């Protein structure tokens, strides 16, 4: 018993001392942040030279039917079902692409690498990927390039030279701006908020949070950043964590950011069940299907997300263009079917467009 008391006290003192040192967000990686201007004026687009890779001895694939594999971070979640659907739509439209989606059942870097490796061996023409880790995935992608396979990323990038092009759904700083702006609009420029994310090591989430902090401290210095909690990809845990935040801060907390498709609906549900709709705003990244009940009940005003179906669709078109040789290093735009002309940014990235904001009016038009 004494041992427990001792360790509990130790744990407590240990933790409180740490909490003082802890400011808001220090996670993510050490990459610099680049917050957008507060008024939304587009920064002058600096022209970057192409920094992507090139496949070695790629056969001429112009106009030929391509065998393509799409390897998302993981299968079995709504988001990547939607990207997969976009890819399938594009493939059907083109008629010259056999695309199939296969991914790990857990968001696990090793399983993903193994899968890609297998597909290199099986001899596909193109690989579409969404990386679980930007660095870890790079060696295997380079191997794919070396085998003459066209490689295009979407959703989550690798190192630039490990793929040819990356379809950027929205730049990190763009998402950050949309999220923080939406929150500020709902809770005012001096409100306090907290964040529920999956894990601190998830790269996209970590980058978004880092950009959000940079943008908020620059543009809304009076907003108060309360804390960030982890909730895995577990919806009940997300729900419990959001509840605990509501209980801890009471009226002090005006808003919750949900950083994943799992955390956002769970946070919205926590707010709903706590009877705090209207008092605590929920802003987050999520797929529309998961958010429909909360948007319908007016508890959540806006859900930020690009359209993942479009993301997959664009990625498929980019791959086609690369294989055909119509998209070459130095190009400034690419034609992507019904999406029209997409811009090239940062040398080897293709921007899908501004993030999409789902509201009560349009959310029922989407099904993913």
């Amino acid at each position, binding site marked *: *018993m004494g*041992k*427990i*008391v001792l*360790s*509990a*006290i130790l*744990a*407590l003192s*240990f*933790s*409180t001392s*740490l*909490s003082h*040192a*802890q400011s808001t967000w220090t*996670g993510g990686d050490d990459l610099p942040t680049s917050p957008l201007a507060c008024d939304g004026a587009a920064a002058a687009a600096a022209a970057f030279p192409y920094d992507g890779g090139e496949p070695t001895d790629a056969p001429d694939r112009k106009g030929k039917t391509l065998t393509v594999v799409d390897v998302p971070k993981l*299968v*079995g*979640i*709504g988001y*990547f*079902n939607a990207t997969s659907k976009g890819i399938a739509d594009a493939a059907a439209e083109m008629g010259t692409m056999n695309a199939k989606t296969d991914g790990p*059942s*857990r968001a696990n870097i090793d399983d993903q690498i193994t899968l890609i490796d297998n597909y290199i061996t099986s001899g596909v023409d193109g690989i579409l990927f969404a990386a679980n880790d930007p660095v870890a995935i790079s060696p295997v992608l380079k191997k794919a390039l070396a085998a003459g396979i066209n490689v295009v990323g979407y959703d989550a990038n690798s190192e630039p030279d490990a793929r040819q092009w990356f379809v950027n759904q929205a730049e990190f700083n763009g998402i950050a701006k949309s999220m923080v702006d939406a929150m500020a609009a709902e809770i005012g420029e001096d409100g306090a908020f907290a964040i529920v994310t999956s894990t*601190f090591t998830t790269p996209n989430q970590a980058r978004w949070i880092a950009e959000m902090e940079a943008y908020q401290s620059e543009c809304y210095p009076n907003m108060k950043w309360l*804390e*960030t*909690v*982890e909730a*895995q*990809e*577990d*919806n*009940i845990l997300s*729900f*419990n*964590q959001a*509840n*605990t*935040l*509501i*209980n*801890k801060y*009471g009226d002090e907390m005006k808003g919750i950011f949900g950083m994943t498709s*799992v955390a956002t*609906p*769970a946070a919205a*549900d926590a707010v*709903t*069940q*706590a009877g705090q709709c209207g008092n605590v705003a929920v802003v987050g990244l999520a*797929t529309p*299907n*998961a958010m*429909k*009940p*909360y948007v319908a009940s007016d508890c959540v005003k806006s859900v930020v997300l690009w359209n993942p179906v479009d993301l997959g669709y664009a990625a498929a078109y980019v791959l086609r263009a690369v294989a055909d040789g119509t998209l070459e290093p130095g190009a400034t735009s690419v034609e992507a079917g019904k999406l029209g002309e997409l811009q090239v940014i940062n040398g080897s990235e293709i921007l899908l467009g501004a993030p999409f904001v789902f509201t009560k009016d349009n959310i029922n038009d989407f099904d993913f």
Partner: protein
Amino acid sequence: MSMAVNLPPIRPPTGQKRPGLLRRIFAEYGQECVVLAAIVLLFVVVTLVNPRFINANNLVTIFSGNAYIAVAAIGMAMVIMTGNIDVSVGALIGVLATVAGTLAVSGYPIWFALVAPIFVGMAVNTVIGVLVAYAKIPSIVVTLGALSILRGGLISVTGGTWISDLPPDFLIAQKRLLGLPVPFLFMIVLTIAAFLWMRYSAFGRSIYAIGGNPEAAVATGIPVERRLVSVFAIHGAFAGVAAILFATQLQVIQSTVPPNLELTIITATVIGGVSILGGSGTVIGSTLATILFATIGSALIFINVSAYWLRAVIGLLILATVLADMLRRHRRT
């Protein structure tokens, strides 16, 4: 609690001196006491740091938010008491939650959507139980295999879609009865019912007997194989109830396997004092341990433990509980 049932033996036989009630409880339910003490201690300390910790809403979060884990741990406790283990239960709960949600939105009556997972859970675990009891494959092997099959199967079939538009009456975990959240009531009622059943029914006692001495159980005429299958089936039924609580907590269901759920459930069970060597422990311990985990999780947020160190602190607390129990046992012998 009704007094109609016979109380367990407490009064000493004539002419014999027996140790005090408290001491007896501590001797019999030592681990439960350790866990309870840890919960009380955490409550006291954290409340001193931040009094909001014990506001009513937070108590609901702590006691109700993880109730589905406690319910699943009841079945797990029975399985572990027979000397077996089940690492597939997390995947099973994911599957059953999806079954419940799919039935609810496909126009089946709500009662059916709520009852079906229980029977599906029993059916799946009956197969596992048969493989363990009759084919004599160690339970960890069968359930490792079942884990892969259930997880892979769920992904192939559903692709992890969200199920929304759930009928409001289906969402029983959000409702309250007598002012108390339904998951909490489920947890308390099922824990007490299971405890009493295991203490007062011949079947319940045979679970302890099989775990404590399987050979003797055979010689005493207990149909060990059949009982094992039944225990797994009952465990499946509890997984079904847990899945319903899991599925109806939010207005949407994601048809995936909750990450590491089986480890959480097993950890709660063993920290609660159920011996992995079989034959001893109670479901009260596993429920208390679930509450302890929920308390730790909430407490660490309330006292501003850096989220980065959160899991390390949880690990440390689990280790401390384990060591405290071991020291207690050593002192006793």
